[in-house]
């Protein structure tokens, strides 16, 4: 495996692969190897040695770092200035069986976002600039280091979430925000999923800037000591802001949602612990051999999806993003997988097979197929970046 220490070395490695027309497996510290489809390639390039923050300007709400920089390092740097990553990127290490640190590049390449996504946008919304090496070994830049930029096609968004199949990012610039002074959570006990999502919709549709909205059915709630004492299912709405605002808003929201029951108020410490668990999907009851799917639908469809999959194969689940993100665990069978893709299609949503044994993830689609017209454009766009199809072949789709 090649471990380039500079962008020029990275470009050279990709140029060599391009000239030899040999596929390259792209990784950071490999913490997401269990995601999507496994990549078979003659060569392997890691960004792990492309590490370090290159710019941090707290008053401009911006930082740049090389793609192999461990995320924890960035989070610590921001915390020292009371700032944070807006999309609250998750750490799926436990779910994916990873023991290595995740990198900034990995989070951006997978467009991973946590609970705050529902109110403040996804990781892709905060990528202000990238430097990357395309499949011909050319260094390309898109965006920059400013917060508002519409100059040229937005390749930042195209590369974010492209799982290293279009270009290898070498440096990324992200927008950040001040870390809220305080957080608190309303916890409603004992609602069924439909009522819960109605409550969460009311919370997200309130003027109180709710920044987290999740539903844990009884089984999932029992796995988190911070809420298990409530007994049964819990419906959770978070508010983060200056302390006086949080106190005021949480009271108002509690009063306005009284029809859903008398909510408990979880304080700052409990909220921190709770939402980092929700973020990392720890409430999901996953058996060792289970597959895990993330389904994204319109929030009101979340309960229907969960119920259908419970009925189909006894799925374990919980809901985030106000009901719009359905976490599913279940047997790694093609029947279960077909049930997931069928219900998501029926509800007009999308999904990703986040984790599965190789037998399943090599045999089926790990993300939904696109329409013929879009797939054709997709192939041409892939060609536009990587004409010999050497970057992470098969990672997102078989044969691409």
């Amino acid at each position: 495996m090649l471990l380039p220490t500079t962008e020029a070395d990275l470009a050279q490695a990709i140029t060599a692969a391009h000239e030899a027309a040999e596929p390259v497996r792209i990784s950071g510290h490999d913490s997401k190897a269990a995601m999507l489809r496994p990549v078979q390639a003659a060569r392997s390039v890691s960004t792990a040695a492309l590490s370090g923050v290159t710019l941090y300007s707290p008053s401009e709400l911006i930082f740049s770092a090389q793609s192999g920089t461990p995320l924890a390092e960035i989070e610590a740097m921001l915390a020292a200035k009371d700032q944070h990553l807006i999309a609250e990127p998750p750490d799926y290490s436990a779910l994916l069986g990873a023991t290595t640190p995740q990198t900034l590049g990995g989070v951006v390449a997978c467009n991973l976002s946590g609970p705050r996504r529902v109110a403040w946008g996804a990781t892709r919304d905060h990528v202000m600039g990238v430097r990357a090496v395309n499949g011909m070994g050319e260094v390309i830049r898109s965006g920059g280091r400013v917060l508002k930029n519409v100059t040229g096609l937005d390749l930042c968004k195209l590369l974010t979430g492209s799982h290293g199949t279009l270009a290898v990012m070498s440096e990324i610039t992200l927008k950040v925000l001040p870390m809220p002074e305080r957080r608190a959570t309303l916890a409603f006990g004992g609602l069924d999923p439909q009522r819960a999502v109605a409550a969460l919709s009311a919370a997200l549709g309130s003027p109180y800037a709710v920044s987290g909205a999740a539903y844990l059915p009884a089984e999932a709630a029992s796995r988190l000591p911070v809420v298990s004492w409530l007994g049964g299912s819990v419906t959770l709405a978070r508010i983060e802001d200056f302390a006086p605002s949080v106190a005021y808003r949480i009271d108002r929201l509690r009063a306005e949602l009284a029809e859903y029951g008398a909510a408990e108020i979880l304080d700052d410490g409990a909220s921190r612990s709770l939402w980092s668990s929700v973020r990392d999907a720890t409430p999901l009851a996953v058996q060792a051999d289970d597959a895990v799917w993330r389904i994204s639908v319109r929030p009101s469809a979340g309960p229907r999806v969960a119920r259908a999959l419970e009925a189909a194969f006894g799925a374990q689940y919980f809901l985030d993003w106000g009901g719009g993100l359905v976490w599913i665990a279940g047997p790694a069978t093609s029947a279960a997988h077909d049930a997931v893709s069928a219900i998501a299609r029926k509800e007009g949503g999308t999904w990703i097979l986040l984790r599965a044994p190789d037998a399943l993830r090599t045999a089926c689609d790990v993300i939904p197929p696109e329409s013929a017209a879009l797939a054709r454009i997709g192939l041409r766009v892939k060609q536009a970046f990587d004409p010999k199809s050497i970057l992470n072949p098969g990672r997102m789709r078989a044969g691409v």
Partner: protein
Amino acid sequence: MITQYAPKPDVLARRAEILQGLRALLPADSVIGDELRLKPYETDGLTAYRQVPLAVVLPSTTEEVAALMAFCHREGVRVIPRGAGTSLSGGALPMADAVVLGMMKMNRILEIDYADRLAVVQPGVTNIGITNAVSANQFFYAPDPSSQLACMIGGNVMMNSGGAHCLRYGVTANNLLGLKLVTIEGEILEVGGSYCDSSGYDWLGLLTGSEGQLAIVTEVTVRILRSPEGQRAMLAAFDAIDVAGACVDAIIASGIIPVALEFMDKPCIHACEAFAHANYPLDAEAMLIIEVEGSVAEQDDLLARIRDICNRFNPISMRVSASAEESLAIWKGRKGAFGAVGRISPDYLCMDGTIPTSQLPFVLRRIGEMSAQCGLAVANVFHAGDGNLHPLIMFDANDPASFHAAETFGADILKLCVEVGGCLTGEHGVGVEKRDLMNVQFNETELDQQRRVKSAFDPDWLLNPSKVFPLKNSANTATPAMAAE
């Protein structure tokens, strides 16, 4: 004068035949071919450039758009999409051999869902029209470009429009869930939907801000948000630009993200005051308008914190509004800034670069020096929180030398923006206006990468040509051959 690709002689020669073909696809009143009725489409918000198109078509449905596109593709006819024609970068400037695809008839709101916080609208709905449709339920659509009364959501999507509240609510790209589009080949695409975050490539992100280069938008799913309990503005004036800039930094560093943070320099303050009588401090070198939101108590708390910060910078005056009416009065001058400058100068060019906010004092000083050098006055108004500058360069369009000097001055400002780490355009788009400056920001490798992406959607370069990308020596270079190079 702007150059465009040469019109295709065969298309010009077949004009009658092409019009006949278009009329076979749409009702008679939806195809415009006579010169008098074509005239209004010759320009957009960048009125310095004009070109009467071959024809204008006004489709009413996605299917009609698909039929039109398939026809134009088959006939090799160029297509210029157009919303309300408010582009300040010439994004809808026609070409002599092109069909203008006007989207104003597709102006219906198709769905509003408060529980799922989204609305599905056609591209010809105005920006303010979305907010108006949901305001009775205390919801709103967040991006608010200053042209929001006229500009259409389809154009907002294609230009990734911003506004004064981006620091808190983001730009258009951050407020979309899905799009329906038609390709140049006449195929209908759906990207995104009513959910968050697609699993494949982020087509929604790529298409947003693509300036009509990739596909035609025929349906837009936007996020709608609950309105805050209230909002209130304050004004702080300083005797030096640097001091105002330092104050902006201090506010952000304190952890407060105001919903709006606007900056005006002395010439702009004076122009706005003469126009709007907003009681602005005429002795100030720089003025900030800062807006916060929340309950009255929350507003009081935030405004007190901001006032304390401003006080550390010796403001020459401060005014905290006590009511919604007073806030409107504070905003009145700012919202009328372009009109105000229009009153003191026969014509003006509105520039749109973005800079790192730390470079603000340096950039404004340099703009002042350039203004003195070229003898053209400039007023600066901008979104201070995100560094998006709008220098308004005053000139006289009846004097070609004055126009030329204004264009050169504008280009120099944008080059300066890039030099200090910023970009050519924060929200107005490249269009034709900044096309020839693209190689200031991007090298040829990077431009070719973007061109190949365009070719992937539009292999024959029929969609909005002559915009965004610097012209190659011959139009023939921008052909499918590029995708394979």
